[in-house]
């Protein structure tokens, strides 16, 4: 990642234009040309600096729901359980964390009932309790990372 890449990551975390040839317009604001911006973004995604490039949808504003869930998975079963959890298309993120509750994942579903049903399926498939931690109030969501 060079200085130009850092400028792209810092400058393009939001506000990507909604118009024809949006990369051309975004590139101009960064002092680049369209082709170079597209090539650099492709490389940043390919090398994993960016998880993706595009819209961050808010499922809740479309009537859907997110539920955070946590499990205490025995170490010797961890990878197998991770595969079973990740196999559900509704599981958007899954992190291993250092705690007795060592697997934390987010289920995105169209209704709270569907989200709870997914947690129930995971409970049944793995034989491990799944703690449901839906958000009760949101105080802040944003991103202020500087590369």
């Amino acid at each position: 990642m060079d200085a130009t890449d850092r400028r792209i990551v810092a400058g393009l975390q939001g506000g990507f234009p909604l118009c024809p040839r949006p990369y051309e317009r975004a590139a101009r604001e960064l002092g680049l040309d369209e082709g170079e911006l597209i090539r650099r973004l492709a490389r940043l995604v390919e090398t994993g600096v960016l998880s993706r490039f595009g819209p961050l949808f808010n499922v809740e504003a479309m009537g859907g729901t997110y539920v955070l869930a946590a499990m205490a998975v025995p170490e010797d079963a961890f990878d197998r359980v991770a595969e079973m959890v990740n196999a559900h298309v509704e599981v958007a993120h899954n992190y291993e964390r250092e705690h007795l509750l060592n697997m934390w994942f987010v289920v995105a579903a169209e209704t709270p009932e569907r989200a709870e049903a997914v947690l129930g399926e995971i409970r049944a498939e793995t034989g491990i309790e799944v703690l449901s931690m839906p958000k009760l109030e949101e105080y802040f969501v944003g991103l202020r990372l500087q590369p």
Partner: protein
Amino acid sequence: MRSGREPGDAATLERRLVQAIGTGLPLVPDPYAEVAAALGTDEATVIATLEAMLARGAIRRIGAVPNHYALGYRANGMAVFDVDDAMVAELGPLIGAFDFVSHCYRRPRHPPLWPYNLFAMVHAKTRPAVETRVRQIRSRLGSACRGDTILYSRRILKKTGLRLAR
């Protein structure tokens, strides 16, 4: 163009857009036209729909979604606090206002295993830096906070963006 559009049409297009670009926008000169062609509509309709979704918060933002680890933010701590229920609604927004907190929520407790009801994602490049920041939060919470801990992430097991089941 059809006249007399049903209210369901816009919602259907939104849903199909989520399916089409929830994991990323095409990296081509005319991404909205490419998405429109795939969905059997036109570029202007895709752009107008995305604008409307952005305006009402159905899209939080459009742009680069960084991988924290790759940016050197290797010490990402999920800091959790056991805060007096009578105080949490007042204190939560103050914690969310710290610039190192990316998400801040109230969630249910599951005692005795999980007594914590306030969650704040704290990002820093080292664990000591995370711990300094969590002490700042703890000090802001004062006596309303009865306990706290930090859960560091060890591995990302999955991160796909949004894919609705069809």
